């Protein structure tokens, strides 16, 4: 299938600060592609460059075959943007807002009327179309916000955190709309979020972005497979390289590593391995398991046999959240 979006080494600098550091990815026609990352990771800046809101500092991208530097005007006709903010005019009605955004994309007369009616149906707001936006609930505003990005029937829709501040009912409605647009109309969608559940539900492939870089890009299944059967965080009073190697060699364990604390330096020849000095809180060892329950049993048995005190135990189910934690050492919502 042809790519509707190709991004190569795209960067954006604001003065000395580099918000996006050479991201590269491609989105297939008809695909729902996720950009997952915490707040400030560079998701919105990346989208802003691809939609013509911000000029890129370096790199290239093609939208529907149009170069975003040389042919942005054409690329904009293919794109649809649903920004994170409620980019609507609150004193105007939903219909007046949609009419305006339709006209901006060149729609007029009967076409405009039909398109506005269509998108109002998609977001289930036909009944309240002539009421002012300011009288709507947060969820309804979000739905109009999405409708405004759809009114000109874009081939590629950018949904930037579309469920922020939305009640569960509207959230589900948005999910259904996204799935229907993709399934029934073949619309390609780039969905950014810091909610891994949303990305898992909607997207076929995901790019995990952190501090302006894409740190992983694959199908959700493959990304989760990075963690095998899950992650176990084990709190210990002490640890050294030899202990980590022994833990990693246990059955059902894939790898073991210290979390965000420097390891004790490797011992010199003939010398005893030095242990990392115990602190009040001890150390945390991250164990990637092939099968989490079996790995827990094996790890506890091993530690008891060596008289090493276990101070805490956390079992993380394999999902994008734990993938992100595994890759960055941070939680998505941090």
């Amino acid at each position, binding site marked *: 299938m042809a790519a509707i979006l190709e991004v190569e080494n795209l960067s954006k600098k604001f003065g000395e600060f580099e918000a996006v550091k050479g991201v590269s990815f491609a989105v297939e026609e008809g695909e729902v592609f996720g950009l997952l990352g915490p707040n400030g990771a560079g998701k919105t800046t990346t989208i*802003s460059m691809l*939609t*013509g*809101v*911000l000029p890129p500092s370096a790199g290239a991208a093609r939208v529907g075959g149009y170069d975003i530097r040389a042919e942005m*005007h054409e690329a*904009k*006709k293919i*794109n649809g*943007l649903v*920004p*994170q*903010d*409620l*980019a*609507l*005019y*609150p*004193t*105007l009605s939903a219909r*007046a807002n949609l009419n*305006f*955004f339709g*006209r*901006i*994309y*060149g729609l007029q007369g009967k076409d405009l009327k039909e398109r506005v009616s269509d998108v109002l149906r998609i977001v289930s707001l036909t009944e309240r179309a002539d009421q002012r936006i300011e009288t709507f609930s947060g969820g309804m505003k979000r739905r109009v916000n999405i409708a*405004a*990005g759809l009114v000109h029937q874009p081939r590629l829709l950018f949904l930037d955190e579309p469920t922020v501040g939305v009640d569960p009912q509207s959230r589900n409605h948005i999910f259904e709309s996204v799935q229907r647009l993709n399934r029934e109309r073949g619309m390609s969608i780039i969905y950014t979020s810091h909610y891994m559940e949303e990305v898992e539900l909607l997207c076929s492939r995901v790019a995990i972005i952190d501090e302006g870089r894409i740190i992983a890009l694959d199908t959700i299944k493959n990304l989760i497979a990075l963690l095998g059967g899950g992650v176990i965080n084990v709190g210990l009073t002490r640890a050294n390289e030899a202990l980590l190697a022994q833990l990693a060699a246990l059955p059902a364990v894939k790898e073991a590593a210290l979390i965000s604390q420097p390891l004790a330096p490797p011992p010199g020849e003939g010398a005893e391995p030095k242990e990392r000095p115990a602190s009040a809180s001890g150390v945390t060892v991250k164990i990637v398991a092939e099968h989490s329950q079996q790995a827990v049993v094996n790890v506890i048995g091993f530690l008891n046999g060596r008289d090493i005190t276990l101070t805490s135990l956390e079992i993380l189910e394999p999902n994008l959240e734990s993938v992100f934690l595994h890759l960055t050492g941070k939680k998505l919502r941090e």
Partner: protein
Amino acid sequence: MNAVTIALKDLQIFFKDRGAVVQLVALPLIFIVVFSGALAAIGSEAEEDTRIPLPVVDLDGGTGAQAFLDELERAGGVAVTLVAQETAATDLDERRIARFLTIPADFTGKLDGGEQITLRLTNHPDAPPEETEAVRLVIAGAAQDLSLENQILASLRQMGEMNAGIPEENQIFTPERAMAQARSQFERSKTTPLIAVKETVPAKPDGRASELDEPVQLAVPGFTVLFVFLTAQTTARSIYDEKKVGSFRRLLAAPVSKAALLAGKVLPGFIIALIQTLVIFAFGMFGMRLLGLTPLHLGSDPLAVLIVAVAMALCTSCLGIVIAAIAQTENQIGGLSSLILWGAGILGGTFIPLFILESVMGPVIKIVPHYWANHAFNNLLARGLTLGDVVTDLLALGVFSLVFFAIGLWKFDFD
């Protein structure tokens, strides 16, 4: 096309905001009524006589001149006072009087002899034109009546003298002939009156306007300028709101050029400014009359008034972009607008007549666009000047618009 779409949307939003409409359109009307009404009340308390004063220099002093003065009094509308020639000239120079009439030294002799006489009406350059026209009509009417009377009397006297030595049965001037002669003289007096009125306007002494004579001619353009420039704040706030809610990003992501986007944000301010001017001037002309106050008159060149209004509307729209480009927060927009728009408005003579401000502050008041708009309106409305006399004002407003637009483009943060 996109600029028009954006502008129409902004106008739709503006007219839904009743507070903004009241501030920009209704508030100036209240200011005008209060200002004009208060000054008019002061004026009426000082002088009950509503007739137009007409100082007369009588160089003749004869019976003919007295007959003419009696005719003027009978005609009404003017309050005749006799003054010395030197006094009249000095008073006119110093703007204590708007005009004076001179009756020539040989008035009575020429009147009796049926010779052509010319009366001279000397007007100050700043004399209200419609008042001058009213005075001229009164003088012309009185002169025509006296001309007719004298021409008919002279011809009848002539016929009487010719008949004097002729026997009654041979007399050629029958009553029918006398009537025909009288009718002929009557018709002649219409086309070639014995007494003609010639108007003169001495060289402009110092350009002082007659605004204080007619407060409405000061209040309407003054408050129009003040409140029209306040629309710059509306333009700035509209741009700020668009950025704040994120719709600006959405517009940047749409196939709309930055020039069209800016034009779309400027256009509503321009249209609102023109609507404001239209409403305020219409109120000045018709509403003031309904309220029993002196109405606004558009001077002798209404087209020039329209051109100044357009130039002013353009200038205020461009100023809006500058404020939007400089101010980063809503508070800054409010603060900057108050400083620039009210401060510049006061400096530009919207509250205090320009000639008073100029005498107190000197040429510094010319640094604000309000001055030039106000100056142009004063020239056209209060002093009865025409388009050629406000070219400098229009150029200044044009230069301000260009500079504002250039600064706006330079400093405007599209990101």
